[in-house]
């Protein structure tokens, strides 16, 4: 389990999303939904796109390229063209810092799929 530092709470306004570059696990998108923080993979599961460039509507992130949607808390893909769920990461907040807990083995499994 890797504890990956994402950003400070003060850097992420409500209903905003931010991309955190990460070459080891893949880029991570961190979200602030009404004061609750979530983290998912940033790369859309359909085509090449950074979800952090998309729009948040309620609990959904809309991909900026084909406007497919994922449910942010669960990563669930909402339908064509997004059929594969998004990987999500548990989030930990310590003081002003937001961390994602990344299961390393899981990452290897996903890569084989």
């Amino acid at each position, binding site marked *: 389990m890797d504890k990956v530092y994402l950003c400070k709470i003060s850097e992420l306004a409500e209903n905003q999303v931010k991309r955190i570059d990460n070459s080891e696990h893949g880029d991570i998108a961190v979200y602030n939904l009404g004061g609750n923080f979530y983290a998912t993979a940033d790369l859309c599961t*359909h*085509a*090449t*796109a950074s979800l952090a460039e998309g*729009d948040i509507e309620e609990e959904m992130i809309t991909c*900026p*390229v*084909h*406007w497919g949607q994922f449910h942010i808390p669960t990563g669930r893909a909402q339908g064509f*063209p997004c059929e594969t769920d998004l990987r999500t990461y548990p989030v930990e907040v310590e003081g002003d810092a937001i961390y994602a807990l990344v299961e390393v083995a899981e990452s290897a499994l996903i890569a084989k799929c």
Partner: protein
Amino acid sequence: MSNIIKTIDVTDSLENLKDVCDIENGRIAGKIFYDQAIYEQELEKIFARCWLFVAHESQIPNTGDYVTTTMGEDEVIVIRQKDGGIKVFLNACPHRGNKVCFAESGTTRGFICNYHGWSFNVQGNLVGQHESGIYEASDFDKAKWGLKEVAQVDSWKGLVFATFDPQAPTLQEYLGPMTWYLDALFDNQEGGTEFVGGCIRSTYDCNWKIAAENFVGDILHAGWTHDSAARAMLGGSVAKVSDFEESYSVNWNGHGYEFALDTVGNVAVLGESALNKYLHTIKPSVAERLGEFRSNMIGAVSSCTIFPNFSFLAGQNTVRVWQPRGPNKIELFTWVVVNKSAPQEIKEKWRKGAMMTFSPTGVFEMDDGENWEYCTKTAKGRVTAAQDLYIGLGMNSRASDTSLPGNVFKGQLNEANARAYYQQWFDHLNAKSWKELPNRNFGKQEAE
């Protein structure tokens, strides 16, 4: 930059055009309303070259707001940008050419092609495709394959125009002193104008020029063609235009405005007395804003065409584009324009009044449509199409002692504007570029 439209090659002009358009001698021939070869020259030398009306700013106030329309037969998307500017794109995917937007208007974050999932943002940039990985493996340069962007876009008092031709003069230069007259309708109150309701689309089996020419300067038809409709709307006949003491036909670069100074002659035919009253109420403030002269034009017996196919009637407040759909067919796009500052019930009366008169079921529009269709259809006859048609009224009516801007002619019952319109048409078909286009303007650039 790389997404700017590739310019098309200019073909040679048709020979013997003078046989069918001889303005000096006041004659044209029906062939110009029916001939396929002439039509193809028009698409190339007029519609791919001139400034064309594409939208009113009020239709697309916010980022991502768009309307779709056509420039000639080319389908385009007109869309508001984040920086407040407006871009116009070909409504065709640069992969296989499929149409990317099927709606007439809306608000969007971009356009996605139905065929292979190419996705474009509001700026027209290609942002991705379905199966994007295979493009990345093909050294594909996304930056080069956005929606093709129209060369120039500009506005005058809310009216948005675009041209495919990067060599075209500025919109200001193109419109010239006609802007002075346009302001009588489009800038007579603080805040300018807006379109109310949607776009009404209808088709007529007529040539686009016959309709545009009617608005450029043919009030002559009204007293005869529209007599019965006027009686229905007004309970009396159309104003006798020859009784007006002062009226004008003014043109520039083929655009034309014909008008009387009776303030409410046009608005009266909507049969809504509240609208006459509204114009009389605002008239003093118009006089303060634009001067006494133009305050008499706000709803007067008048009509205007901006070359080649944008027309309107002050008073009836109908604004329209005669979209060419072959030599003998048009698609008419029409809207209702009102002052933004007008009371809501006044705007609504204008919308209804325009529907009653200048919509597909409007009493005046039906009168016109029938005439225009037969002006076109008779030219199907090989022999009929070659015969001279008279266009010589008011040959010696230049107003030399006027302070008004533009090429000014005395009287509305005058074919001076129609001649200037067809002369411009003729000149465009003969010119390979803007540089070759003769300047036939003789009037003042600005009002004195």
